[in-house]
């Protein structure tokens, strides 16, 4: 064995795990390496993992999980680590099972419009691999350049184009999952949709890595729409912008995407790497995309232009070229990262509201902003009411992280209060655990942790995520039981 393949650790667990994955190149255990894994896209909570292992196949994943579960070691799965709610943060010093080396595109079956991928396969690579044949994979989270499909399944990721095409769960046809005891199970075999029995695919998708670890995914792929056009509209007043959104939907148009950014968000994207030249003094910019049969597109575009004009739009136009369209989207899709250009840190929230309540919600968010003294930018999947308030703060200033968390939580309270909910696509993770109480009673939460217990009875897999820390009654008892067993 070469020197660099040798694991220099006295910890028997590290040595045994290294044996499973085949040596030093597939395990990290020194502090300097582990620091890079102390958080994901959610940076407010940090914790060092015990180790990071890099399995190459399902068998290795199963062996790792079996080992962890037999030795009572907490563990969790991580993809690209772009999650925004902290789902991959090793709160309990977990063994992180990194899925990024399982990144093969296993098969493409265009006749039946499906593809099979390993969980570490990057979202956009799927579209890139089949686009020359006229197909694509619809769910398009903004991080699609680098996030993995495995992570998308865990978080039930959405994206700008989910308004028309649905979120990840609508595109999953089959999963291979390693259960927390090491068993390998297949759900939705052969990718036949709508299998009889309980919808286990629906249960696993979006379970935030608390029920099992996905090792193979069959996804639906779609034929590229024949035509596509995007409209950009600037509004002087948020009210007009959001009324235009409602009008477009009530006119019977189903846009592929309908996005909004507010003034502070515009300031961010314009200061960053992909500026478009949006005016600084407008209150809202809308990005509206329609796709489908080429013949119908112009008619829809005309309708949209008409609606916007009726709502006092300052300027509205359709993209003059594919380059211009791409520039508008690059500007929007890099929106979160762009906040780095105007603030050292940000916390992104993920509320969902009834579209009609937007002006009211925005003004309440403004109020939270002025009360907390922190700026809040809003990026909004306006079509489906999924609002992303970005709380801008500086973690180096004492107390500001806490203030940001508090402001974020208040934003979610507002969303819940107007009849919405606390997450649309980023998941609950660590970030919104407590806010689950805004939308669920203790009993409802306990009912859900009961389900978790069926799959993950010792709660070794990604513990401490998705649900609030135990309240009184049920959770406490369960926790005590779990501890007694271990």
């Amino acid at each position, binding site marked *: 064995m070469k020197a660099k393949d040798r694991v220099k650790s006295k910890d028997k667990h590290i040595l045994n795990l290294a044996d499973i994955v085949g040596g030093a190149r597939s395990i990290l255990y*020194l502090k*300097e390496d582990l620091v*890079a894994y102390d958080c994901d896209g959610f940076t407010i909570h940090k914790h060092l993992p015990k180790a990071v292992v890099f399995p190459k196949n399902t068998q290795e994943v199963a062996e790792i999980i079996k080992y962890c579960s037999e030795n009572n070691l907490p563990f969790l799965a991580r993809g690209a680590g772009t999650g925004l709610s902290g789902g991959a943060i090793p709160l309990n010093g977990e063994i992180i099972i990194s899925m990024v080396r399982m*990144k093969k595109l296993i098969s493409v079956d265009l006749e039946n419009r499906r593809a099979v991928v390993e969980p570490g396969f990057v979202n956009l690579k799927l579209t890139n691999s089949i686009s020359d044949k006229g197909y694509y994979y619809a769910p398009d989270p903004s991080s699609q350049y680098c996030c993995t499909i495995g992570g998308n399944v865990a978080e039930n990721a959405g994206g700008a184009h989910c308004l028309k095409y649905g979120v990840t769960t609508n595109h999953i046809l089959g999963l291979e999952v390693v259960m927390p005891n090491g068993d390998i199970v297949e759900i939705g075999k052969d990718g036949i949709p709508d299998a009889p029995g309980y919808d286990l695919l629906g249960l696993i998708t979006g379970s935030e890595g608390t029920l099992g670890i996905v090792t193979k995914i069959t996804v639906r792929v779609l034929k590229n729409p024949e035509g596509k056009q995007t409209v950009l509209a600037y509004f002087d007043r948020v009210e007009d912008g959001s009324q235009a959104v409602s009008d477009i939907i009530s006119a019977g148009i189903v846009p592929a995407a309908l996005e909004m950014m507010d003034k502070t968000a515009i300031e961010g994207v314009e200061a960053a790497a992909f500026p478009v030249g949006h005016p600084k003094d407008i209150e809202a910019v809308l990005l509206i995309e329609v796709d489908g049969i080429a013949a119908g597109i112009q008619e829809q575009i005309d309708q949209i232009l008409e609606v916007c004009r009726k709502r006092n739009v300052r300027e509205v136009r359709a993209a003059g070229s594919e380059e211009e369209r791409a520039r508008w989207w690059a500007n929007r899709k*890099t929106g979160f990262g762009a906040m780095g250009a105007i603030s050292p840190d940000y916390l992104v929230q993920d509320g969902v509201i009834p579209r009609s309540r937007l002006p009211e919600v925005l003004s309440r968010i403004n109020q939270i902003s002025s009360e907390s003294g922190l700026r809040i930018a809003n990026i909004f999947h306006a079509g489906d009411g999924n609002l992303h308030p970005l709380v801008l703060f500086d973690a180096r200033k004492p107390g500001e992280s806490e203030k940001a968390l508090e402001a974020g939580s208040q934003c979610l309270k507002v969303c819940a209060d107007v009849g919405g909910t606390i997450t649309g696509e980023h998941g609950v993770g660590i970030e919104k655990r407590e806010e689950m109480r805004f939308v669920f009673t203790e009993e409802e939460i306990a009912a859900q942790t009961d389900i978790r217990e069926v799959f993950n009875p010792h709660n070794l897999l990604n513990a401490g995520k998705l649900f609030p820390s135990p309240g009184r009654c049920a959770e406490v008892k369960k926790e005590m039981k779990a501890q007694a067993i271990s």
Partner: protein
Amino acid sequence: MSVRELDLKQEPPCTSGLGNYLWSDPPDEKKWADCVHCGMCLESCPTYEQTGQEQHSPRGRVHLIKSVAEGKLQVNEQFMDPVFQCLDCRACTTACPADVDVGGLIEEARGQIRQAMPLTGVKGAISKFFLHDLFPHQNRLNTLGSLLRFYQKSGMQKAIRKTKLINVMPQHLVDMESIMPEVKEPVKKKYKDVKVIKATGETKQEVAMLTGCVMDVMFSDINESTINVLTRNGNDVIIPQNQTCCGALHVHAGDRDMGRKLAKQNMEAFKDFDKVIVNAAGCGCMMKEYAELFKEDPEMHAKAEEFSEKVEDISKFLHETGYEKPKVEMNTRITYHDACHLAHGQGIRQQPRDILLDIPGVDMVHMPNSDRCCGSAGIYNITNPEMANAVLESKMENVPDDVEMISMGNPGCMLQMAMGVQKYGRNQKIVHTVQLLDWAYQKEDLIREGEE
């Protein structure tokens, strides 16, 4: 792991350090303040592609660099690994939505590491030989060039290859020897006594030219082509004799003091000129970033910024000032590789392609991921051969099959890609963009002479 006592050869000076960065010129806090850990850089990074490991990704590296400043980590060997595994290709800078200067941070962190742990042993000796004893000294480079010429011409090269004597070298050096271009006389020496190389027609302007260290020894024909192309398009060319190596290799290696010394010498050498033309992407990018080296010296910083304005890559210069379109057919299928320090470092992508497409009969085939690093990265392919080879392999997979030439704008890439062609049984010729243009001009002249 803590810093080994022995590693601390140099006592940290009493400066106001930053966390565990105890030496002067520490990584710039402002640079990482822009990073919000979004991860958009991950897929752009060749070392992340190879390892899948966060500490070998731009985001991970920035996180570690920041952690040292926060006092969570020490400047030690374990920290050194991710920082020195970086190719410094800058692809992450292009991918980053917030324009985080990851490359700049890496170089500053390397400066700290080198001050904390000066290189010792074989690695130290090699590094010192290349960076201190060879590249900054033109006469020694010339001697090396002469030796290489002798090696090639005398039959020694043949003999050594034949007798397998070459096999005593490590494999990656054998690979490099096998693709060594034919070494000719350096242009700096050739034009030693020529004050101005006059434009062939009417003079439009006067430009100075950086001949470079490796470029002039290994690729003096590219320098010759650059001069031809410049003079043909109305430029008087001056080669200041007191110019030196640009310092990029030193700065990449963390030797920022030497970098500053060379920067000062070059700024002095070129002070009387309005334009400094560079045909090596790595050198051009370094010279455009001299100001980074003088953050703690406002006066030099201002001077360096002014100097950087004058530095221009040959392709951009030609594109902006205009060039004669060749009139003969070259009839060749080529592809273009974006040198990292042109595309990511200087944002120059379209200009060289336009020039190539202006040559009649040049058919350009798109190379997928053309702006992906080839693994050359200065002397990275000597210091980190294993990673460099993995990166090269993935680069070569993207080179289209049916092309005769691969064009690019950086000597390091040219050597590395030539190695790739040889290693993976391909047959493409590696050319510099200006070479193709020059050959077209020459062909045109030959035809005209034949007609006269």
